[in-house]
């Protein structure tokens, strides 16, 4: 892995940026990688387009932008439509399946959906959507260790919600692993 580009994208209010921060933090502080997180968001506090870019590398990474994401995580239809054109062959596309309909998916990439909103409602807090997605990403990619991400989640969420978030992570992670397994079997 010389350089991995990840984009997480959705609405404002879904915790997109925090997901990026946790991912970057896991890599930078617990996996010993170089990580750069950049964000782009609009003026809306809720509901606007919002996206976090994470670039991971072994060496010091200076160019901070994501141009051709290796991993695209999308949590809204507009985000999907805006960014799906960026991915290239071999990219991993992960999406929230209640919110995204992955139309015109490029053939050369692997795509997995997760009903994370429903999972979040099950867990009882809609706001853990992003952590579920993180678990999902962790399971289906191999750019960060689950260990590192779990640590980073615990460090990043409000005191008193650690347990809840751990559950959320696990829910996404397990679901991801199961899909992976299914896929591996299918192949």
């Amino acid at each position, binding site marked *: 892995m010389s350089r991995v580009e990840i984009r997480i994208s959705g*609405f404002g209010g879904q915790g997109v940026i925090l997901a990026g921060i946790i991912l970057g933090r896991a890599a930078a502080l617990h996996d010993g990688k170089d990580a750069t997180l950049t964000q782009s968001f609009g003026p809306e506090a809720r*509901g606007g387009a919002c996206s976090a870019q994470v670039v991971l590398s072994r060496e010091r990474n200076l160019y901070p932008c994501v141009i051709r994401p290796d991993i695209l995580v999308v949590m*809204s*239809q507009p985000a999907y439509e805006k960014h799906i054109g960026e991915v290239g062959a071999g990219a991993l596309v992960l999406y929230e399946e*209640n*919110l995204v309909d992955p139309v015109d998916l490029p053939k050369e990439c692997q795509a997995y959906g997760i009903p994370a*909103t429903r999972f979040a409602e099950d867990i009882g807090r809609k706001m853990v959507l992003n952590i579920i997605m993180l678990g999902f990403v962790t399971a289906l990619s191999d750019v960060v260790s689950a260990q590192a991400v779990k640590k980073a989640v615990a460090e990043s969420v409000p005191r008193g919600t650690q347990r809840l978030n751990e559950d959320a992570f696990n829910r996404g992670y397990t679901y991801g692993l199961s899909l992976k397994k299914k896929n591996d079997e299918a192949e």
Partner: protein
Amino acid sequence: MAVERRTSRRKSRGELFIDCERCKGCGFCVEFCPTQVLAMGEKLNRKGYHTPVIVDLEVCTGCDLCGLYCPDFAIHAVRVKIEAGEAKECDNGG
């Protein structure tokens, strides 16, 4: 505080319009409808919000308080003569 139903159903009743894709699920319309015409639904729209559903159109007076309260211009009502009208509920299943 129970809300008394005082719909003068004789003369007019309400015709309701809900645009579920605009709705953000705040619940104001449901809460402040004086005759409890509405309830929050189970379905999610494309943005992931639960949207209101009509539970008792009969009692709707067309007062449009729901419209006044809706911050997203997603619902409104008109008063119609007794015979006219019908509820226009969210039709895209969002």
